[in-house]
């Protein structure tokens, strides 16, 4: 079958914050750049980011990048690579000021500087006192950021392929990346995007869980494509859960609700956080609150007929306070829980929020894999940035406002690396293999002819329930082991999904079937990596990890201070060292310590 081919200097998959930032770097340098995106760029999930972007500008309180570096390493529970973290925090001011120059409407101080507010986990003087480090544009930081970057890209003549779904990575016999195949949704036709450089910026994969704050587009397309093409996935056992998602819906109830006096209660109405965190109570850190909630549910004190959630109570607050201080919460609760929080408590459950792991990269945005004894050899022509990538700056746990920083810094870094490699003549258009589109065409053909298969949504639901039950907030050895068997069974079922609608034009059922192929790779990687890691670290918390002097909080640095690498082929694991040495010789490494706040 003849497949249309388009040729570019660079192809970028994804048009959220990371993709747009990378594209800008390339287009402004004059590279012929194509950006493929499933949805219109300003409808990417970056829009949902509210908190802000971290930078040690010191506009509101004294600050410097050394403190930001310390907070990020500690937040990561020492699994973050200190060279990449140093790079990111040092670049923060530059990328934020750049964005300001692009027209991003940051909130201002009275004297016209960018206003900064405090955020959990960010501190002055190495953990001493809270610092104001988050730069925000009201509660629409992500939205404003995407618009500023999109407008700038339009000016720079970036070519957008909107409503195109990338399908598979194209590699040659040497493993070099030569571009992607992609399906145009309007026609259902598959094309080849042949390029000297390919950048993945496809965002997170939070839809692998039943309860997720992520929008439906977050199906881990880049992560799945990379895995199927033989690239290992790094640290996929680490997922950040937000304590208060609306039960059954996942929609986020902001931390501000507990800040204003909201109380978590179990089935008997008890304020159970008093038992787990006597001082901070409901305002303890995200992971502590999430684990306490799950313990209540697991021990039979959950609420509702299924005893599967707890309640967030703000009925003691005045309606005026709720309407004034917590705008939007009432609407969310009424819409998705059927409850007016002025009159009755909101059912909540810890909910998947952010993917710390992903496609392994270095701080330049190059995708790196183990080869000939070196754990970090760049894959020629392949780059990644944002939530789909693992640089690794978030390690085992991400700090709020570091995700928007990550996508700006590493989107730009990936772009800069491509431009440098292009200008030095290192990037060339390598010949495509004869069978470059065969894998993608076979996937489409299977969906055309499959009979007696299951519906896509049934298999997706089975995957989501398996992940939620077996690899949730709190993890148990026997549940994880069983989870591996179960998720591999679901993966078999995913190979035989069936769609009733066989039309080519705007066939959303087919798109969802292709997305499931990506999600299932992420789900397998998560379950297998989590089962194998026999310690607690950051967001990965095991019931059988013991808190003692040698393994503080259950963290076992002697055996587990290392990155996981999961390979789809053979479902096998490998490991590589964490980079504990910062980028600069004169910067002291942040020494290992127990993570306490």
């Amino acid at each position, binding site marked *: 079958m003849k497949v249309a081919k388009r040729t570019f200097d660079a192809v970028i998959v994804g048009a959220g914050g990371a993709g747009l930032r990378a594209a800008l770097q390339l287009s402004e340098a004059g590279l012929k750049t194509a950006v493929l995106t*499933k*949805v219109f760029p*300003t*409808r*990417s*999930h*970056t*829009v*949902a980011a509210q908190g802000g972007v971290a930078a040690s500008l010191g506009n509101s309180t004294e600050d410097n990048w050394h403190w930001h570096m310390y907070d990020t390493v500690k937040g990561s529970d020492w699994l973050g690579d200190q060279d990449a973290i140093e790079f990111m925090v040092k670049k923060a001011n530059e990328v934020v000021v750049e964005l300001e120059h692009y027209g991003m409407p940051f909130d201002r101080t009275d004297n016209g500087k960018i206003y900064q507010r405090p955020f959990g986990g960010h501190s002055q003087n190495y953990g001493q006192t809270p610092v104001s480090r988050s730069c925000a544009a009201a509660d*629409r930081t992500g*939205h404003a950021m995407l618009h500023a970057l999109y407008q700038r890209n339009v000016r720079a003549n970036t070519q957008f392929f909107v*409503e195109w779904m990338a399908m598979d990575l194209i590699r040659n016999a040497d493993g070099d990346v030569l571009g992607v195949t992609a399906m145009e*949704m*309007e026609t259902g036709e598959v094309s080849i995007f042949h390029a000297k450089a390919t950048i993945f910026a496809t965002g997170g994969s939070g839809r692998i869980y039943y309860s*997720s*704050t*992520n*929008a*439906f*587009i977050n199906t881990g397309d880049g992560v799945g494509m990379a895995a199927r093409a033989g690239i290992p996935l790094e640290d996929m056992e680490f997922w950040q859960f937000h304590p208060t998602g609306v039960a059954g*819906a*996942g*929609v*986020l109830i902001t931390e501000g609700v507990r800040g204003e006096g909201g109380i978590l209660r179990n089935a008997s109405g008890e304020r159970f956080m008093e038992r787990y965190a006597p001082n901070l109570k409901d305002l303890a850190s995200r992971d502590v609150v999430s684990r306490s909630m799950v313990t209540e549910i697991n021990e039979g004190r959950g609420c509702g007929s299924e005893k599967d959630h707890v309640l967030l109570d703000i009925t003691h607050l005045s309606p005026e306070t709720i309407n004034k201080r917590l*705008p*939007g919460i009432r*609407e*969310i609760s*009424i*819409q*998705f829980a*059927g409850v007016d929080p002025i009159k009755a408590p909101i059912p909540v459950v810890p909910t998947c929020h952010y993917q710390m792991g992903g496609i392994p990269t270095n701080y330049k945005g190059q995708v790196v894999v183990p080869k000939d004894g070196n754990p970090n050899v760049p894959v020629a022509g392949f780059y990644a940035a944002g939530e789909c990538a693992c640089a690794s700056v978030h390690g085992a746990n991400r700090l709020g406002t570091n995700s928007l920083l990550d996508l700006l810094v590493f989107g730009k870094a990936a772009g800069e690396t491509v431009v440098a490699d292009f200008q030095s003549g290192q990037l060339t258009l390598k010949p495509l293999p004869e069978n470059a589109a065969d894998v993608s065409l076979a996937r489409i053909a299977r969906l055309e002819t499959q009979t007696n298969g299951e519906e896509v949504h049934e298999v997706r639901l089975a995957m989501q329930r398996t992940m939620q039950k077996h690899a949730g907030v709190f993890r148990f050895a026997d549940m994880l082991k069983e989870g591996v068997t179960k998720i591999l069974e679901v993966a078999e079922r995913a190979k035989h999904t069936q769609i009733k609608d066989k*039309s080519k*034009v*705007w*066939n*959303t059922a087919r*798109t969802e079937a292709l997305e499931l192929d990506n999600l299932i790779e992420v789900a397998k990687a998560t379950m297998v990596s989590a089962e194998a890691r026999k310690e607690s670290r950051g967001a990965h918390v095991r019931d059988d990890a013991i808190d003692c002097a040698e393994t503080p909080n259950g963290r076992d640095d002697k055996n587990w201070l290392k990155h996981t690498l999961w390979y789809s082929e053979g479902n096998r694991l490998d490991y590589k060292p964490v980079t504990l040495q910062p980028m600069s010789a004169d910067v002291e490494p942040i020494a290992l310590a127990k993570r306490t706040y």
Partner: protein
Amino acid sequence: MTLNRGRVRWQCRRALLELDLVFTRFLERHFDRLTDDQLADLDDLLLVEDHDLWAMVNGSKPVTKERWQEMVDLLRAR
């Protein structure tokens, strides 16, 4: 010109989970029964930015164009 229903259906994939959930319900209950005129109204509404669309659906902001009202009412219905 008649709009392609598959295209409009795909435009209902949004950036915010709140809207994805509202549209899931809408697609199940109402989408297949929309007339061509209603479909055109929906297509126009779908051009609205996500935060503004969510504000209209949850009633915290007024619907600013008359032709959107019927679709917003359907989206709002629980």
